[in-house]
């Protein structure tokens, strides 16, 4: 059984990579842009999944870290001379440089957001449950306000326009294609990194902490270290997503990172399926496409959609959660399991060696 799932996993990963690599040849520009956003949300959800799905902590304000990454990237891309042109005069001690190529800002944004996340995780690990949820909520609420307050750096409410993205290194490839590949290659690398991280010691430690902290501690897991580590890593993922987002929309301002996006991010993760990377991928599609369909739902007159996109969105969310309480990935998994069991039960008659078949027979 484990082998069947592993083979399925590998096959799914290969098919997914092939699909995303080949898609640009067949998709129009709009779909390409949509899928670029999917990659960006996927990265943010991978990070949130490490925090919520694996370490069992909660974050209601995770989009703030996306915002930190986005502002970091925007400031580095614009650079000090660019900011002076926009009539902003950030204090001299902030190392801004003279404008950086967008792709190099991605790791820096990840590190900056990661440091913020780690720093937040240190005091936050004293909190749990509702208190932690409230503390993270506060982060989500305060980021737009902080961005408004320090307007000599962040541009305040009017925001910072970035120069439009270009293809680097003189490559002969259109800008949407470039942004698409940039986002998906980053997403693939980070998904692989998350997989490596979670299948090893750290993943086991986080899982143990989630399922029973006392038991984990008595087995020698350091809860403080691992919990703050989870915060730092997930914030770093969010920061990378933010950098890609800032370049993609070529604009940042406080309204770009509203609290509502944090909630939608968490909702998308739960919808996709907690604790699963495929769940994060499904969640990323939900996050990009659900609000769009909510605006223009098929099979309805135009009247409903333009009046209440948010209501439509909410109703769809509720319906999905009723149908799939363990998220869409949970639904797929239980369906897959049923099919495999069915196949195995039929094969039991022929193949007596199947260990699974024996257990099924015993049940019957």
């Amino acid at each position, binding site marked *: 059984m484990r082998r069947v799932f592993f083979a399925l996993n590998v096959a799914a990963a290969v098919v997914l990579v092939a699909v995303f690599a080949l898609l*640009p040849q067949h998709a129009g520009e709009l779909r390409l842009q949509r899928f670029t956003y999917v990659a960006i949300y996927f990265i943010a959800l991978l990070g949130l999944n490490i925090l919520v799905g694996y370490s069992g902590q909660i974050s209601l304000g995770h989009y703030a870290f996306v915002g930190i990454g986005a502002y970091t990237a925007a400031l580095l891309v614009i650079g000090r001379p660019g900011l002076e042109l926009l009539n902003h005069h950030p204090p001299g001690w902030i190392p801004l440089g003279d404008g950086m190529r967008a792709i190099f800002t991605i790791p820096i944004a990840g590190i900056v957001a990661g440091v913020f996340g780690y720093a937040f995780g240190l005091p936050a690990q004293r909190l749990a449950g509702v208190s932690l949820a409230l503390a993270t909520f506060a982060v989500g609420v305060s980021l737009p306000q902080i961005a408004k307050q320090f307007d000599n750096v962040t541009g305040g409410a009017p925001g910072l326009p970035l120069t439009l993205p270009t293809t680097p290194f003189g490559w002969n490839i259109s800008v949407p294609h470039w942004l698409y590949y940039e986002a998906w290659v980053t997403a693939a690398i980070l998904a692989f990194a998350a997989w490596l991280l979670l299948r090893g010691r750290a993943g086991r430690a986080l899982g143990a902490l989630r399922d029973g902290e006392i038991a984990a501690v008595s087995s020698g897991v350091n809860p403080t270290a691992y919990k703050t580590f989870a915060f730092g890593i997930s914030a770093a993922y969010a920061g990378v997503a933010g950098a890609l987002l800032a370049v993609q929309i070529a604009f940042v301002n406080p309204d770009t990172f509203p609290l509502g996006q944090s909630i939608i991010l968490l909702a998308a993760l739960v919808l996709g399926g907690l604790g699963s990377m495929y769940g994060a991928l499904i969640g990323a599609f939900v996050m990009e496409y659900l609000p*769009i369909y909510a605006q223009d739902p098929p099979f309805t007159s135009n009247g409903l959609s333009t009046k209440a996109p948010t209501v439509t969105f909410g109703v769809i969310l509720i319906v999905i959660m009723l149908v799939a309480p363990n998220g869409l990935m949970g639904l797929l998994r239980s369906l897959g399991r049923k099919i495999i069991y069915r196949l195995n039960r039929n094969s039991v008659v022929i193949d007596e060696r199947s260990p699974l078949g024996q257990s099924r027979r015993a049940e019957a």
Partner: protein
Amino acid sequence: MKRALIASALVAIAALVVSLPGAFATTRAETAATATPGVTSKLITIGGTFPLSGPASLYAPIPRGMQVYFSWVNSRINKGDHKRGVYGRQIKWKYYDDAYNPAQTVQLTNQLLLQDKVFAIVGSLGTAHNEAIRASLNQQKVPQILVSTGASEWGTRAREFPWTIGWQPDYVAEGRAYAKWIVQNAPNAKIAIFYQNDDYGKDYLSGVKEGLGSKSSLIVGEQSYEPTDTSYASQIARLKATGADTWVILAIQTPTVRALATAKALAWRPKDIVINSVSAIDLVMSAATQSAGAAYTNGDISSAYLKNPSNPTYAKDPWVKNYYRIMHKFAPSLDAKNGNYYYGFAKAYDVVRLLYLAGKNPTRQSLMNATRKMNWVNPYALKGVKVKTSATDRFPISQMRLIRYQDGSWTEFGSLLQGR
């Protein structure tokens, strides 16, 4: 396990290698534009983004007011060419909810361009939101016209962004008008200013200071608020302590109501000046009157450039009557008294005039040329207010009149003011 991993990585790399040349190949063909996007023999598609939900959803009626006017244009027969629509083309109006989030504005504007294939982006709402799409639209040479924001930069930065143009009087001009009125009518006033701490409030603030000129010493106190603040008691107490007798409130609707209520609670009764977006919606002043009392709203000064559909003065105005008739016919369920419907309706009038001016075979370029030759009277605007632009003047509406609030309605007074 490891072998499977390596195998999948190899497949992934192979797929990338296979796909990249294809990606390079498709890049060139895209730019070859043939016919004008969004214009067919029967249809002309235009679109915009608006906050139908979220913190600014109060503006949601604007695109619906526009829709009603376009529906009427599509159904009526034009006296000149005996055709419905504009030169026989039906106007298709597509608008999306960006929830006041610039990231959504960017995505949905792309959707309008690439999926709905609109001819032009019309009337999108919000200053930061229009800034977020401006560079990209100008690079692609897509008209971004009659934006629903009064920031001064739509007119002042026209050389940098020739594909962008505003519509209404800008905030700097409005602020200047209030200041000039104070200088003329109360040369010894002690002015307190309360403004929203963002570009919107600061545009107004700079207008007021410009208008005061050498008299800027009249300002005795300046306080700002954040749109998310829930109490202004400390700011307003400080303003009261300055002994000011004239209070310029450069705040949007809800904060203005709250500020007036706070002033009453602190028993401070200066002469108030409120901005156009407050006075244009009757609901706001009646809410303020309810929470602060008539003594705190009667005599308030503001400005207007459109007729007010719920003002008794205009009950017999043929154009306002026309507005109600069309609204009742095409959207009987909407509350036509809401000034935001009227704003959208009045703006749509100018959109249609522009589409005619762009010619029988309009192109994006001919539409932009038309925005440099606007010269007409919008019958839904105040009497005498002209819609006028030139190659150098990029402020379509720049005239306004001052208005005074008394017992539930606004009355115009004084002469027409030139904003620019």
